């Protein structure tokens, strides 16, 4: 242990031997070995503290002090009812509750041919040969204690495999629920998305729950040549929840990834989106909005590696910070030596609505190729007085004028969502957030 580590003694870590038989893929020897290695790595790495540059603005102290246990089994009825009311009830859906698939609430019957959707536990029973490579690769990621914990305690997440040339039109809905009703629990969902050549799919993930819980999802996305994936994430976690997500995306030539993150909740959330672009004409776009109040803390950290020539990436984030909330945006774009003709854009705009709110932004460029177009921008400030005055002069009251302007500000990010139904869903959530602000 060095001074860069935050020491945490979580009960669920101590219970490793007791719980591992219940975790997915228990009969697989290689997986047991991988879990044990990962646990040893966590014990060595612990959690990153703020002396680690990437964690400068996000303090895991409160997380380290909470006694997280392994999940206590099924979720409460009220939470189950909320899951039922989320999204389109007729949609293809998979529900992961407290780290386990909830078959009663899931419905994958309407899945078109060419798409395979199942929980991690099922996938390990039937396709462990396919998953082995993915799981081993993720285990080798030189990351931090959070990745090691997910590798050691990997629970049910979703596995989506789309065959070559299969174009899946209906949106696939995945709902993650955490229930800390019987005490704080730690959840480590693992998702794997494998997009075949020229395949296409759309996923919307919703995260919600009750009480104190820590969700630590790790998503591994591998996109074949010409594949296209839209992945939307709705964060409606409980007010006292911790959400620390890591996405690892790899793109072959001609692949297109379009991600969106809507963060409306959780006590402390961090979304690390790491992408490696390995082929020409691939595009990696990620956009999002974070609307925070109270003492919420939301951190968006992107790491985009342009490792091949002729690719493009775009990032647009809009943050609205009220009360004593804090927003963090760390965006890093690296253009490797051979990645000529890279086109990378990155933008983070933050609106501060309160004197106690804080935004910390670190948009970073690391460029080793000369024939590139890279730009980033970051702004922070309050609403424009002139715009407010303009609206008020036309008979709109101050509160409504502010609501209109904030809504317009956020809309620039929502416009990145090119599917109407999903965009509408985010718009509803933004409106609901703004209603509360006025109330």
């Amino acid at each position, binding site marked *: 242990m060095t001074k860069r580590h935050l020491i945490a003694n979580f009960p669920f870590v101590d219970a490793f031997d007791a719980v591992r038989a219940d975790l997915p893929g228990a009969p697989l020897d290689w997986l047991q070995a991988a879990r044990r290695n990962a646990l040893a790595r966590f014990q060595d790495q612990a959690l990153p503290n703020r002396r680690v*540059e990437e964690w400068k603005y996000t303090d895991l102290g409160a997380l380290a002090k909470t006694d997280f246990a392994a999940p206590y089994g099924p979720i409460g009825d009220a939470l189950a009812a909320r899951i039922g009311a989320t999204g389109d009830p007729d949609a293809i859906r998979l529900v992961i509750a407290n780290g386990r698939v909830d078959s009663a609430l899931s419905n994958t019957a309407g899945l078109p041919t060419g798409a395979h959707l199942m929980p991690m536990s099922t996938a390990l029973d039937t396709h462990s040969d396919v998953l082995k490579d993915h799981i081993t690769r993720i285990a080798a990621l030189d990351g931090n204690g959070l990745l090691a914990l997910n590798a050691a305690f990997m629970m049910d997440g979703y596995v989506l495999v789309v065959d070559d040339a299969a174009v899946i039109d209906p949106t696939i809905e995945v709902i993650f629920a955490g229930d800390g009703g019987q005490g704080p629990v730690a959840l480590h969902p693992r998702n794997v998305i494998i997009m075949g050549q020229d395949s296409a799919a759309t996923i919307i993930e919703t995260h919600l729950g009750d009480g104190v819980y820590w969700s630590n999802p790790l998503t591994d996305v591998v996109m074949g040549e010409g594949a296209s994936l839209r992945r939307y994430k709705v964060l409606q976690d409980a007010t006292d929840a911790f959400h620390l997500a890591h996405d690892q995306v790899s793109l072959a030539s001609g692949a297109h990834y379009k991600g969106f993150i809507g963060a409306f909740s959780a006590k402390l959330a961090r979304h690390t989106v790491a992408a490696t672009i390995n082929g020409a004409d691939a595009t990696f776009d990620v956009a999002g909005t974070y609307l925070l109040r109270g003492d919420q803390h939301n951190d968006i950290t992107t790491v985009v590696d342009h490792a091949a020539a002729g690719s493009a990436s775009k990032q647009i984030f809009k943050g609205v910070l009220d009360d004593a909330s804090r927003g963090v945006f760390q965006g890093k774009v690296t253009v490797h*030596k051979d990645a*000529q003709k890279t086109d990378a854009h990155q933008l983070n705009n*933050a609106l*501060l*609505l*309160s*004197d*106690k*709110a*804080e*935004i*910390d*932004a*670190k*948009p*970073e*460029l*690391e*460029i*080793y*190729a*000369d*024939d*590139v*177009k*890279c*730009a*980033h*921008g*970051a*702004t*922070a*400030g*309050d609403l424009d007085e002139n715009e407010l005055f303009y609206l008020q002069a036309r008979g709109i009251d101050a509160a409504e004028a502010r609501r209109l302007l904030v809504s317009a500000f956020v809309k620039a990010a929502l416009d990145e969502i090119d599917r109407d139904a999903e965009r509408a869903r985010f718009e509803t959530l933004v409106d609901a957030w703004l209603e509360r602000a006025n109330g």
Partner: protein
Amino acid sequence: MADVSETETINQATTERYKYGFVTDIESDTAPKGLDESTIRFISAKKDEPEWLLEWRLKAFRMWQALDEEEPTWAKVSYPKIDFQDSYYYSAPKEKPLLESLDDVDPKLLETYTKLGIPLQEQKMLAGVAVDAVFDSVSVATTFKEELSKHGVIFCPISEAVQKHPELVKKYLGSVVPTADNFYATLNSAVFTDGSFVYIPEGVRCPMELSTYFRINAAETGQFERTLIIADKGSYVSYLEGCTAPMRDEHQLHAAVVELIALDDAEIKYSTVQNWYPGDENGKGGIYNFVTKRGACRGKNSKISWTQVETGSAITWKYPSCILQGDNSVGEFYSIAITNNYQQADTGTKMIHMGKNTKSRIISKGISAGHADSTYRGLVKVMPGATGARNFTQCDSLLIGDQCGAHTVPYIEVRNKTAQVEHEATTSKISDEQLLYCRQRGLSEEDATTLIVNGFCRQVLQELPMEFAVEAQKLVGISLEGSVG
């Protein structure tokens, strides 16, 4: 391009001065190799310092020891570990052997001077030629000194200020860059040998650019330079440090500390042209320039403006910063950092907004060529009390060739909703269209590149005092020699 080793030749010419003899025996004026408390006591005794300053140095030294040689590693630069016990920390200024005439000077060096447009008499000074009666530097310097003292301006070596103006030194030394600020500043606090001290009294507009004086009086400053500039209420001073002419120094590590203090309504303009030995085209040798520069706008309506043209040094690690304490105070940072061959530069600024209606502006132009790496690293911080703070930051990088790197690492921390903070950065190369346009009109590729780069840097060059702006423009071209074609 055949001329790549020009800088090297120049530096060879400047380092080889001892082959002409005339070395005085100075052994007794040199502290033994290594660094411990006795070294500090030796330096302090040599300078006949008062007790409080010795204590101050020792305190810094103990802090530095406690850091256990853990140098900062966050900058994007790499170099072999420095052995701090393997160098000398004090040697009295050496007498330079004088040459008979300019005919004895390496023609390559003269060529560079001519390209920079340095006047003939100054060329002699810089090359170490005995200066004739027509241009007596001593008398010119005396005239300047009289003029300055007439206005009450104090401008002297800091060691002299310790003796003559202890109250000012005691009050302000270490008040902007605390002893424990960072590894190199702590080291400097323990072992600094000399540097400049400037005090501009209340309401005085310094009658001349302190650069003019400085250039003529360019004394050997040593590797641990300490500069302290205080602009009292309503005063103004413009200070230029460095020189466009290539400079060779026998110390590889330079760890200077510069502190600026601007009181109510005062303004300090600090310009730097840094052209130290960058190492040869294979990245061998060259100066490590690890400098802590910081200004405090203590008073209301005060202003501190940093302008820097960084073309030399193997490694540059410096972040001239402004602490905007006074209401309505203004901080500015204009920077050009050119890296070629294997040079590495990690430079930028910090603007800390504390007072109401404070404003800051950052314009940074990084140019990388050859195998060089250039990083802009900056912080804009708006504290909760800084109502109405305003910042604008623009960081542009230009890459010449596909073996170099350009990086931008801005930190933006805002804790006041009335703040307006804007940051934008771009990275690009010289476009083929621009080059074609120039070449169609008869410019060589190299001249065209220089012209375009100068255009790219214009916003910063125009902030320099006039005479240096002209030289700096030419320096841009010289620094990029060998990077195209």
